[in-house]
């Protein structure tokens, strides 16, 4: 894999992030009303002194381009402004919340890809069979269920009928002082329901996609070649076919990452998971714009990083793309 290609991708990613920053800046100014009031938060009950200090800090009395410069140079120093509701710098707020979100999103992503692809491979063995039909139906249902409603239904199920998984938060209060290992196990225990809820939608999609691309690959000439040289059925499926069928899945996984974050927003709200989605929800209720914009910035940042990683793994997985730019 060429380092220059990676540099190019990173450079483009930075450009996209600059775009996000400019968009954030424009959104605040395009919103109806005095930007200082917008920044202070309509429900924050800002005093005239506060507004004055905001105007000073953001240079709101200066020309628009100067304001943009002040804003962008702040972001470059990881200064995304002050949340007047939480009374903390936005960057600090997000730093506290970003890891739980990453944990949730990555777990859901892995869960949905592994389970989905596995189901898809099984289904592709018998295109007219029971598993195949189940995958198709399940994919359509998984696509149509509102994710927040799935979460609520699971809460009802696991809170009252089958209380084996915690339905709220990330860490039990009584374990605040326990050792790190016990805490990690407890976090995983709390993670089960939110991660599964989030995974369901995408699991179904990957199963459907996995089935389709496995069917296509299994009909190809090189699979016949693999069989002709005496490879076992398992090697044909999981080595020869899956490596090829994984390519479209990888593409979709990269494209889905943004939607996954959107879904995480709802799931975090339902399960009180202390991540960025929960933060976004809280700050939107309070019209806490600097925090909202900060969340938008960091969520986009995660998408950009995920896209670069997807691109790189795609080039690693498909030798035909290596050495091209």
């Amino acid at each position: 894999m060429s380092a220059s290609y990676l540099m190019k991708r990173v450079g483009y990613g930075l450009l996209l992030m600059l775009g996000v920053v400019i968009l954030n800046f424009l959104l605040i100014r395009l919103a109806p009303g005095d930007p200082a009031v917008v920044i202070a938060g309509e429900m924050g009950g800002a005093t005239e002194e506060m507004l004055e200090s905001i105007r000073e800090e953001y240079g709101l009395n200066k020309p628009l381009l100067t304001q943009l410069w002040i804003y962008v140079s702040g972001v470059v120093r990881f200064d995304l402004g002050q949340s007047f509701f939480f009374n903390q710098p936005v960057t600090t707020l997000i730093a506290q919340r970003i890891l739980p979100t990453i944990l949730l999103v990555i777990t859901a992503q892995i869960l949905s890809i592994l389970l989905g692809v596995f189901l898809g491979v099984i289904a592709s063995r018998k295109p007219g069979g029971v598993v195949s039909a189940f995958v198709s139906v399940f994919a359509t249902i998984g696509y149509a269920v509102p994710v927040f409603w799935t979460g609520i239904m699971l809460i009802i199920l696991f809170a009252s009928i089958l209380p084996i998984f915690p339905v709220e938060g990330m860490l039990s209060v009584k374990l605040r002082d326990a050792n790190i290992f016990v805490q990690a196990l407890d976090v995983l225990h709390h993670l089960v329901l939110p991660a599964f809820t989030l995974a369901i939608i995408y699991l179904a999609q990957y199963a459907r996609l996995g089935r389709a691309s496995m069917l296509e690959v299994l009909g190809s000439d090189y699979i016949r070649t693999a069989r002709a040289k005496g490879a076992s059925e398992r090697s044909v499926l999981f080595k020869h076919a899956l490596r090829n069928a994984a390519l479209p899945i990888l593409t979709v996984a990269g494209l889905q990452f943004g939607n996954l974050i959107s879904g995480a927003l709802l799931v975090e709200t339902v399960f009180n998971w202390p991540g960025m989605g929960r933060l976004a929800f809280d700050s939107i209720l309070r019209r806490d714009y600097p925090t909202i914009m900060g969340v938008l910035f960091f969520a986009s940042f995660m998408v950009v990083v995920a896209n670069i990683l997807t691109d790189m793994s795609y080039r690693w997985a498909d030798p035909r793309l290596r050495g091209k730019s």
Partner: protein
Amino acid sequence: MSERALNKAESPALEAWRIFRRNVPALIGVVILTVIVLATLYGSFIYTGDAFEIVWAPHEPPGVTPDFPLGTDYLGRSVVAGMLTGGGPTLAVGAAAAAITMVIGVTLGALAGFHGGWVDNLLMRITEFFQVLPALLFAMVLVTLFSPSLLTIAIAIGVVSWPQTARLTRAEFLKVKELEYVTAARAIGARDARIIWKVILPNAAPPLIVSATLTIGVAILFEAGLSFLGLGDPNVMSWGLMIGANRDYILDAWWPVTFPGLAIFLTVFAVSLIGDGLNDAFNPKMRER
């Protein structure tokens, strides 16, 4: 060769319709959707009642009082009334948002695919930029900034959802553009706009129609998500709002949350069954898979 093909050449639309009307899941989708649309349009004539009005004791379970067959919510509002009046905004916003998505997406995708070169490059960079923003979060920001109403919600959903449509349209245009009849249209001196709208678009239409159908489903889920988060129009009852408002009491009363969720699910389910059916109808060869 089948006799049908020998006897008469069917128009593609007729052929598609012939396949579609034999597709049982798609017909089930049509039936479900028709029932839901009729219920939201005319249901309130049969069951009169204001969804916001407190009419009974809170948390009356379903099936106990004949006046409130689906029970009441945490304030004592009728769940049936909410179900019947709450579908309208959801469906309207879903349809409007899908229309906005298609207009933006098809226009930009068509321009990019048709013109190529720097136009394509620029438009695709813009598309990629919009794909970097997590859609729901971006929609939340837009709705909050411009204060929630059915119109702003529909616009916000359209603004965040068009990139996929644009990519699809562009890909279709790139495919169709190379075909002979487009070259022929150019050869007789047709203007660009005419070639785009009268020659290429009709031929690129089938996948776009399928995509439009599925977009309605996505838009409905979006609207439900926003209303659930409390970002819907506060003066309009909707299924998502019912779920959001009652979600703190789910362990006391499952019904005010379960029924609207089922309604959303069934609507999107029906729409995607129809979308799949259309897809099969337009690509008969794929069905043999």
